[in-house]
């Protein structure tokens, strides 16, 4: 059978091969070491139709394996003009270009370096891929002294290197935690991808969701009737388990709350079980809410392409809240969605002065910390309900679950949403064990598939980047009998399933509100015999 395995399947890779990592850099100087591509480590190029759908320039067919990437005429000028524009528009970038002292404190903090040993996966060197060009064309010393000043010419080789290494970074910010200046590689990865996109160079796994989301309102390209079908299907499944038929309001004007969640929750296991948890909770609370088909995506792959694309996709959320006349917005479990909502949305598409401060209709808690953006995280809502004793829970239903919690990079390091999900998890699940201290909270490790890396064709990179997390999970599996990794991110739910199957077999991935849905005691209905996955209770292990 081995002969039929392909590089896009985890089974293709021998564990012992992936674990044999050479951490010493190769001979020679890095600016001269050539970049090469092999199957399993690169993403498929963006299809021209997806770039054209967004009105983006230089859409063309190319392959990372080609010698000539068919860069558009004047490509160097396009890159340098783009770089100048971004530098002039961002003190953040200027500082991060000028202040790094190359102490290397970040080097072995990067999950991609930990799993690959490739020196260009050290955050400092990933940034130098761009800084070397900045020095050559934007600093006097680089212009005059060249290589001696750490500068180098912009050649097609550099473009290939950028494509390779800026798509081997999930913008997770772990490096920044250990940097004395807080230099954030995510800024460089965003810049590098933005410059590449101007040449028509991007990954299809990023640009297809962006194009879909622009047209249909969600990454998966689900049309409005499809959203309805999916939600009705989840309501059917929930009825099987609970005996209760829940209403699924869609595009309903005058609702109090607009609920926005990643579309992955509606379509793919195990996210669908989390979505069933939402539906059960909202029903039991009697929440006056609505889904939207126009703003049917919480996630925002524009973040992984350019600030303008991020803004174009994100604009729909406030526009829809205004059209529907809701009072405030509730957001589901998603990682990078919350990076955008928390750190970019109000600046880009605010002010949301037509909305009201999120207030829990059940406990009356006024969430003042969201009084500007008017958007609340569902873990904040649920944690508040639990703190007020307003949820009737039967944690024993999750007795078959022994859980650990994976902090998703964005809620952890761009928000600080660390304790709310833990408070909820402790309330709904009797068995909870933390992973090693330097792999959780602000030091959390990588799922390997965020920022548009969650495809299959780059499986080797995903397994390598997920190695640290996978081994930390295996440690608590062996020590504490953990069988479930709980997380509050749709990308995590998809990508960590692969990571756990490979590095920590026997551990599966669940959303927080899947376990809430299991434990939630609902009025009416039938006694629970099965969990939301329709497995007999206690049979999870």
């Amino acid at each position, binding site marked *: 059978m081995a002969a039929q395995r392909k590089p896009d399947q985890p089974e293709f890779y021998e564990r012992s091969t992936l674990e044999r990592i050479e951490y010493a850099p190769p001979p020679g100087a890095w600016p001269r070491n050539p970049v090469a591509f092999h199957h399993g480590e690169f993403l498929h190029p963006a299809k021209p139709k997806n770039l054209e759908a967004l009105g983006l320039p230089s859409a063309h067919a190319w392959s990372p394996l080609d010698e000539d990437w068919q860069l558009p005429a004047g490509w160097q000028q396009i890159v340098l003009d783009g770089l100048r524009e971004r530098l002039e528009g961002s003190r953040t970038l200027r500082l991060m270009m000028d202040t790094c002292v190359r102490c290397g404190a970040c080097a072995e903090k990067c999950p991609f370096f*930990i799993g690959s040993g490739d020196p260009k996966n050290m955050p400092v060197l990933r940034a130098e891929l761009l800084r070397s060009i900045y020095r050559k064309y934007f600093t006097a010393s680089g212009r005059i002294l060249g290589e001696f000043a750490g500068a180098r010419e912009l050649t097609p080789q550099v473009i290939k290197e950028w494509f390779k290494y800026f798509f081997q970074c999930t913008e997770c910010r772990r490096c920044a935690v250990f940097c004395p200046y807080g230099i*954030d590689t995510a800024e460089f990865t965003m810049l590098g991808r933005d410059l590449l996109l101007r040449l028509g160079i991007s990954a299809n796994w990023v640009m297809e969701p962006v194009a879909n989301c622009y047209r249909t309102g969600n990454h998966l390209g689900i049309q409005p009737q499809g959203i309805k079908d999916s939600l009705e299907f989840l309501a059917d499944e929930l009825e099987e388990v609970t005996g209760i038929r829940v209403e699924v309001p869609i595009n309903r004007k005058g609702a109090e709350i607009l609920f926005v969640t990643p579309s992955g929750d509606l379509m793919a296991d195990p996210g669908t079980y989390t979505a069933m948890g939402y539906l059960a909770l909202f029903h039991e609370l009697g929440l006056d809410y609505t889904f939207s088909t126009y703003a049917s995506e919480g996630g925002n792959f524009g973040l992984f392409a350019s600030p303008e694309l991020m803004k174009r996709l994100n604009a729909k959320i406030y526009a829809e809240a205004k059209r529907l006349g809701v009072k405030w917005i509730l957001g589901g479990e998603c990682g990078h969605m919350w990076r955008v909502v928390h750190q970019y949305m109000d600046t880009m598409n605010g002010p949301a002065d037509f909305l009201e401060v999120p207030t829990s209709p059940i406990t009356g808690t006024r969430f003042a910390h969201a009084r500007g953006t008017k958007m609340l995280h569902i873990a904040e809502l649920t944690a508040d309900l639990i703190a007020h004793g307003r949820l009737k829970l039967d944690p024993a239903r999750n007795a078959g679950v022994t859980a650990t919690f994976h902090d998703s990079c964005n809620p952890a390091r761009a928000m600080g949403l660390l304790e709310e999900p833990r408070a909820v998890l402790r309330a709904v699940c009797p068995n909870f064990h933390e992973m090693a201290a330097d792999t959780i909270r602000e030091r959390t490790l990588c799922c390997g598939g965020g920022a548009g890396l969650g495809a299959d064709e780059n499986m080797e990179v995903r397994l390598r980047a997920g190695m640290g997390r996978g081994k930390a999970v295996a440690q608590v599996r062996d020590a504490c009998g953990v069988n479930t990794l709980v997380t509050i991110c749709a990308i995590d739910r998809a990508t960590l399933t692969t990571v756990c199957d490979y590095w920590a077999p026997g551990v599966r991935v669940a959303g927080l509100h899947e376990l809430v849905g299991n434990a939630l005691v609902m009025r009416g209905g039938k006694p629970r015999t099965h969990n939301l996955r329709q497995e007999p209770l206690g049979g999870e292990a």
Partner: protein
Amino acid sequence: MPGTGRHLAVHIGGALAAVAAACALPVLMAWLLGPHWPVLLLPLGLAPLALVVLFVAKVARWMRAPVPFRVPLTTGQQRGSATLPRRRFDNPHSTFEVVIRVLLDVFLLRPLFRATPTAPRLGRGLAHGMARWLWLFAAAFHGALAIVVLRHLRMFLQPAPHFVAWLEDFDVATEMLLPKVHATSVILLLALLFLLGRRLVLVRVRYISLAADYFPLFLLLAIAVTGIVMRHLTRTDVTAVQQLALGLAAGKLVLPARADFWLLAHVFSVGTLLVYFPLSKLMHLPGALLSPTLTLANNNREQRYINARNPQVEVLHYADYEAAFRDRMIEAGLPVEKE
């Protein structure tokens, strides 16, 4: 060996040659000039001016660009629910909390202190950048350098401020234990040697190192060594130097009797450092204090952050969306704006 060969030779060799030139050229010039050596004070006097002008220009260049988004790095629990314990100085919300965070992160180098081995014993052979040793020696270096710089105020201010005397008392105390040795001198030298040694010994760090990383280390070593030699070994006429400096500060020229070659090497390498500082990575001093990830409050959802250059973008409006899908929405029983 990775990171050795031509690349290392160019970057280390170039840096060493530059420092050697900075020390030796003024000495050679003074020897050639003979009694006219005070002419050299003229270019030297321009160094502090260059520092100020270039420093201000660089920071102004930074400040001209806006910070497009408020992107603080959060390393602890947010301020949300009243019942959950928040980490104020990891996830600052108010200006006061930001100030404390900056003190901890920038002045006490907290991010380097966080360096612990990555559990659970990941990849075999993954060394950890000497973990907290980097923190210890980086802190020692910056602290010792600050003390040495402040102690030099005695050269320019008469009477010297009280804290200068206080700093001297600290060193005098150690001198009683170990004659001829100042604690700060020893710490400064050891820390510099550690930082240089680490850069050379750790292959990963050597692989990323440039002349711009070796040059300041070599230059500071030259400054420290010449300073220590003058202070502890030779009989440099420090009073004459002080008279010269105080005189210059008051606009008078009080020349020492003769040119001291150690002194010339010392002050010219300091001059080189002053000019080099604003052109180099040493600008991490103001840079760290301006870092948007460390100096912004995590109050994003509470107070809107304004980006003056917020670009206009093309958006697919609801009306166009509904127009594309209206039939299917009606068929599915979904509400529409236009029947």
